[in-house]
């Protein structure tokens, strides 16, 4: 039972995964730019939070930094706050 990280190419594999996720994140920027409503933009930001957690987890393996899992944990906890603020505070006319 060999795990993935025993392989010599594991670092590159994890980096490739992180890069792939980063590409999807950059593609998501297009939705933020286009809109058309504020809600669509917040949805894209929500997806960004999750993708960011994924990238951090992949990087934690690629860079052999255990602390990055903590960063991912914090991001997972706090990414929802912006969404809650949006829903509670933008009670006025939608832009």
């Amino acid at each position, binding site marked *: 039972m060999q795990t993935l990280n025993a392989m010599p190419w594991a670092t590159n594999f994890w980096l490739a995964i992180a890069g792939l996720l980063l590409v999807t994140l950059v593609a998501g920027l297009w939705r933020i730019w286009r809109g058309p409503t504020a809600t669509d933009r917040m949805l894209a930001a929500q997806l960004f939070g999750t993708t960011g957690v994924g990238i951090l987890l992949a990087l934690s393996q690629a860079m052999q930094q255990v602390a990055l899992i903590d960063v991912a944990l914090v*991001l997972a906890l706090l990414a*929802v706050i912006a969404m809650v603020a949006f829903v509670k505070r933008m009670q006025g006319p939608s832009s």
Partner: protein
Amino acid sequence: MNLAFDVLLGIALLLCAAGVFYSRDLFRAVVMFIAFGLLLALVWVRLDAPDLALAEAAIGAGLTGVLMIDAVAHLSAKNAHHQGAQFDQTGARPQLWSRILPVFSAVIIFILLLGAIWWRPDAPVSLPDLVAESLPESGVEHPITAVLLNFRSYDTLLEIAVLLVAVVVAMALKPDTSEPEAGNSKDPILHGLSARLVPPMLVVGVYILWAGSYMPGGAFQGGAILAAALVFLKLAGFGIERLADSLLRIGLALGFIVFLTVATSVMIGGRPFLTYPESVAGELIFFIEAMLTFSIGLILFSLFSQAPPPVAPTSSLQGEQDER
């Protein structure tokens, strides 16, 4: 592989910044700003600075985004009072020469910075080696915590003083109208979410604070998480201002006072200001950090909650100036 990832990340960061600056819609700028914070956290990871990534994830994704959404929502809610007002104002259109001048100066700034980066002088001492050398004397194992709270604790002491000044200014600016905020009706789902999410937030905050003495983490990151948890509670409609108000008076200054007390009480034993006796340095640092976390969390939260309630502008020149 490494380089490709970094180049893509840097370009994405610049794109995001451009998106913040050149959005006609203010809300788009805010969402771009949240994305910018997330990407910046990833950049800190790539720069081998997990501490900064932690702080940026807590502050960029949590606090700054909330603050800015709040401000923009406030602006758009007020614009609804006088219809026809443009949500987005790009300011007066400058003449041609006054367009060229900013471009020119921005390019000059960029070139100067490039020059400064390229022809940097060699540092006479190697700071990382110095830190590694004296790390055993500091009482903690994580070099960044050692720098922050032992070798350069002046910075930290002054920083908490600056935060204290900021919050005092914010309290002074608060208008005395204390009408209840609109839209604070309790949503059962949101209520449930906060009941489940805030306890883990507090636990993670304490964990990050505790982890700070041997791995990335510490008072600032823990404080940011604590502040985010409080902000979340307030957004979910829990009336924690009453509690916070009484807690605030004690909590705001506590970190600063404790830090200053410890810093001066070591002078009784004949030591210089802000140096801890080696035998108890670790305990003292942890004690100070715990107080700092508490204070930073409360300060950041009260900077959020002291915002004026959304009331219509009182001035008589509403319409004219807004049309710009």
